[in-house]
């Protein structure tokens, strides 16, 4: 975090205390949102958020900022729809401009199989309270005039499912807004502090070992993106998580307005326009798990081929910047939130490629769980013990890639 940012958001830094009621590992969106809701909704302000780098330096600053609720299982649609609604009122709630803009997202289909899948998705979404409708190729063209309906002769568009409530928001601003909101209530945020281990007291977790010394805590929540398996191993908790790199890139500015967000689950790529006019393009994650943040040319090559077939105008733009984030992907492609079976240790993880859109709901519900000790109904399906009891939430088709 630089001076420019510090002048625009009222952030207050503190020296660490020896103990807190709640210690949250990871100063990204989920960690800071949980701290904010704990302090604001439940009056628990003895909270520390411990961040190894600067706030939002992990995946909260590397995602592609899409907010949507068009998932493929009822439990997920309800959860993300709640998150989407919280985003709509987030600017009033936090009194901070996060550049939230409702744009609508279309998921293109190129084969009958995918048309069937998208039809099923739209019906399920409607039944669970999220609006998704099927649109014809002509309607898609009206929403996004740049679209080549023949897909460059290679990927003809047969139709699409359209989710009008989809939105984007500036990811850094969301992180800063939650940090500011939490700090206003007295939450401590400790930047550049590494968690090196967990303090065990018998079977329970009673605090964290950090580079700034040990800190005792009533409850420890891991809201880490990327290294959660190592944190959990300190508590003897095994997680069904693999960490994969995911890349994205932006082009130079495109001077015309670009309608909405165009996504393609068949080709696994998606395109939107940032506030600055740059075209933001992402694709699927790398097959082999790794913690490497290196970007690759082969990724640029394969995504450029796909998106220029659908949106020929992209050929005239140049690639400005490319980056990589690391995604914790659970075995059933759904998040894992809540208790771990070890007293005093909770996780919110498995945010793979769908974490940014879940920040408000994830934070609010985790705060409720910590404050009341009871798992809220929205989180119930996403408990870690669903794997042992064979109630997995498989939804791989809806993760899209974002």
């Amino acid at each position, binding site marked *: 975090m630089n001076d420019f940012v510090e002048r625009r958001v009222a952030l207050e830094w503190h020296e660490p205390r020896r103990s807190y009621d709640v210690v949250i590992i990871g100063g990204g969106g989920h960690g800071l949102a949980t701290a904010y809701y704990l302090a604001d909704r439940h009056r628990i302000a003895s909270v520390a958020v411990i961040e190894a780098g600067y706030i939002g330096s992990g995946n909260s600053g590397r995602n592609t900022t899409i907010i949507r609720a068009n998932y493929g299982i009822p439990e997920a649609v309800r959860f993300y729809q709640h998150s989407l609604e919280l985003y709509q009122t987030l600017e009033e709630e936090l009194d901070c401009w996060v550049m939230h803009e409702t744009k609508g997202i279309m998921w293109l289909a190129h084969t009958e199989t995918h048309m069937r899948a998208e039809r099923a998705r739209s019906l399920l979404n409607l039944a669970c309270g999220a609006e998704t409708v099927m649109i014809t190729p002509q309607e898609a063209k009206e929403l996004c005039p740049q679209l080549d309906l023949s897909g460059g002769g290679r990927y003809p568009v047969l139709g699409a499912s359209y989710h009008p409530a989809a939105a984007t928001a500036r990811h850094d601003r969301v992180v800063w807004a939650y940090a500011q909101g939490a700090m206003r209530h007295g939450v401590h945020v400790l930047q550049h502090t590494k968690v090196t281990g967990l303090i065990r007291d018998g079977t329970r977790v009673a605090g964290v070992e950090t580079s700034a010394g040990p800190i005792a805590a009533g409850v420890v929540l891991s809201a880490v993106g990327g290294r959660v398996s190592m944190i959990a191993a300190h508590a003897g908790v095994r997680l069904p998580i693999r960490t994969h790199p995911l890349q994205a890139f932006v082009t130079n500015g495109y001077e015309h307005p670009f309608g909405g967000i165009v996504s393609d689950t068949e080709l696994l790529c998606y395109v939107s326009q940032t506030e600055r006019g740059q075209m933001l393009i992402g694709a699927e994650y790398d097959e082999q798990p790794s913690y490497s943040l*290196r970007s690759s040319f082969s990724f640029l090559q394969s995504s450029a081929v796909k998106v220029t077939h659908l949106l020929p105008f992209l050929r005239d733009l140049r690639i400005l910047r490319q980056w990589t984030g690391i995604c914790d992907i659970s075995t059933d492609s759904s998040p894992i939130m809540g208790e771990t079976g070890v007293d005093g240790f909770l996780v919110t993880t498995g945010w793979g490629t769908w974490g940014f859109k879940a920040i408000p709901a994830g934070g609010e519900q985790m705060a409720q769980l910590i404050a009341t000790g009871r798992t809220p109904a929205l989180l119930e399906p996403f408990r870690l013990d669903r*794997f042992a009891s064979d109630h997995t939430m498989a939804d791989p088709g809806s993760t899209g890639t974002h």
Partner: protein
Amino acid sequence: MLWISCPICGRRPVEEYRLGGELRGIAAWLTDPAQRDVDYVWMYDNLEGVTTERWFHSAGCRRWLTLRRDTTTDTVVD
């Protein structure tokens, strides 16, 4: 990009391979057989560092191989 040396085909790009998964034992402290089954089916070490994996050369000789890969840099180590 990751390059993997196949004993039969030589050094080939990762696109020719499919990852079978990490090669690991079940944590010794898990003693309950049911817990060990859950661990075997669902859980991963997901190590940050050197991990041992099985790979399948699907677009080559179609044989399996075992290699050690450093997940911090995504490179093969000997």
